[in-house]
């Protein structure tokens, strides 16, 4: 009961519109004062959480993405995908999904993916007669792949909070991510076939395709370098992020010749600001995790679940429903950081694979990015296009249905996520 009261209080505070980090921190401090009568040791709690080598991957992946964004490599990625599939029915939609998948493997961020690809893809799709809703839906949903396809900032955060293997999570996200991308692409083709005004472009010649691929080759080489290094045990996630940032810098500076000192500063500045914004919430969540543990709320939940004889399946379904509902109102980082410390002890007691749960969580958080009223990618599309929310929401609804089906399939067949990490000898 206390747990639900605390969560209810928290949701009210967060919905009030005050900064999430401040709302989470002040609620935690208030509860801590009620428990202990003071606030001693709070800086130590935050310091211990932030002083973590694994978390360094997040600013470095952000830096890698910023170098690639500043060099405008996305235009080449989109052009390469476009020339490869534009003659398919719904080819521009498929190219958009393919570009999102590729950029997701570079940026590690859903918002950055939707924002960057959307600016190129939406005008192009509209120009060739694609319905606006279809263009909005493809970019908003394609953008969500950023948190499932590695590298992924939210995955690193989950791994650190749950003490799960970042490498295993990155590997586990690959097949579900590609399957979802494939499902999105198939939907684009079916939808385009049913829209008579959409134009199917002529097949690109080999020379044109070769030129487009050659221009994008350096950007396309980055994900295999970063992810391959991790998958084959050459780098840790943090090292992969550092090497990726250096490679992105070299591509932008030497290949694209478009990285003056001012833009290097801007790239690093934006990486710092992104990191500080996310990690302030992480710091507040550390306080929250500390206080709920002090209040024995996770332990009470474990006792209640055990007393009720709840099975792992029943618990997982309940948690996924709660996260889906939270996802309509809160953003992804807060959901990871608020829910994980509470459900983790139960997951361990019920012997649920933490990597599998992490992937289910990421797919559910992808949904959070496009479910109204608060879906970050919906706002991104609105920001790019200045469209009203109604067509954007109509555009994403089919993708919401696809993702819910994908989540259900992943729950029934955990092997889809776990086969690759287990075949590469990643432990649990």
């Amino acid at each position, binding site marked *: 009961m206390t747990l639900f009261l605390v969560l209810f209080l928290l949701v009210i505070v967060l919905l009030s519109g005050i900064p999430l980090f401040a709302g989470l921190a002040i609620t935690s401090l208030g509860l801590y004062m009620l428990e202990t009568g003071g606030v001693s040791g709070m*800086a130590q709690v935050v310091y211990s959480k932030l*002083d973590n080598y694994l978390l360094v991957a997040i600013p470095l992946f952000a830096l890698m993405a910023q170098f690639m964004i500043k060099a405008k490599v996305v235009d080449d990625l989109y052009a390469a995908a476009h020339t490869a599939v534009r003659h398919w029915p719904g080819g521009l939609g498929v190219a958009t999904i393919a570009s999102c998948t590729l950029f997701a493997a570079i940026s590690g961020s859903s918002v950055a993916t939707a924002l960057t690809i959307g600016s190129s893809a939406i005008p192009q799709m509209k120009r060739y007669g694609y319905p606006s809703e279809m263009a909005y839906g493809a970019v908003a949903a394609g953008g969500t792949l950023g948190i499932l396809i590695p590298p992924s900032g939210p995955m690193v955060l989950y791994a650190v909070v749950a003490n799960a293997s970042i490498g295993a999570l990155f590997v586990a996200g690959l097949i579900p991510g590609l399957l979802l991308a494939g499902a999105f692409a198939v939907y684009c083709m079916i939808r385009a076939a049913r829209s008579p005004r959409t134009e199917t472009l002529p097949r690109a010649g080999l020379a044109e395709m070769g030129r487009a691929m050659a221009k994008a080759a350096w950007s396309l080489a980055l994900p295999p370098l970063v992810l391959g290094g991790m998958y084959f045990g*050459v780098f840790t996630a*943090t090292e992969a992020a*550092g090497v990726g940032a250096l490679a992105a810098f070299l591509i932008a500076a030497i290949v694209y010749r478009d990285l003056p000192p001012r833009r290097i*500063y801007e790239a690093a500045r934006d990486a710092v600001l992104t990191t500080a914004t996310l990690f*302030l919430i992480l710091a507040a969540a550390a306080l929250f995790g500390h206080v709920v543990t002090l209040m024995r709320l996770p332990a009470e939940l474990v006792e209640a679940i055990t007393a009720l004889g709840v099975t792992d399946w029943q618990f997982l379904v309940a948690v996924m429903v709660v996260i889906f509902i939270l996802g309509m109102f809160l953003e992804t980082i807060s959901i990871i950081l608020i829910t994980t410390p509470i459900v983790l002890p139960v997951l361990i007691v019920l012997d649920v694979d933490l990597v599998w749960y992490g992937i289910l969580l990421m797919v559910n958080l992808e949904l959070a990015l496009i479910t109204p009223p*608060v879906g970050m990618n919906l706002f991104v599309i609105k920001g790019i296009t200045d469209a009203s929310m109604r067509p954007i929401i109509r555009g994403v609804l089919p993708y919401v249905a696809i993702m819910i089906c994908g989540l259900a399939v992943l729950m029934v067949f955990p092997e889809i996520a776990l086969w690759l990490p287990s075949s590469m000898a990643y432990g649990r």
Partner: protein
Amino acid sequence: MVLAPVMLDAIDRLIGWVARAALALCVAMVLGGGLVVCYGVFMRYVLNQPVTWSDELVGYLLVYIVMLGAAETIRRGDLISVDLVSERFGPRGRRAVEIVGMAAVFAVGLVLLKTGLDMLAFSARINLRSQGYLAVELVYTQAAMPIGGALIALTGLNRFVRAVADRPRPASRGGH
């Protein structure tokens, strides 16, 4: 509020300068941290001489990057918030949300400052050193907490005062 607008603007500019200086330090640290990580990889794979201190160092840099970078994030209004309810408010309602939000930011900053100083005093008293290869005195790494707390409190207070005086900086970025 009896503070003259010109004085509020002067304080705002001063705090802006401090926050941007802290941000510039963070930029140097994130670029330096990236190079340290790459140096570690190079030494291990190319020269076969693993570096023992790089992991520990970049962990400390991260604490500074977050705590020093926070001030500019707050000053710019880049903090993530859910404006589902507040976007329906009129100007007075939004101002009230800004006042309450910045009061909370100020309070959190003060707590980090106070408890950070307590942590430093404790570490200094027993001459606490890190457990890693650097064996650095922890007062230097932990100093990020009170410094960052002070900056957070300062930038939060600045926006709080401006909101009360009805001279707000641009509001927090909405949606998320």
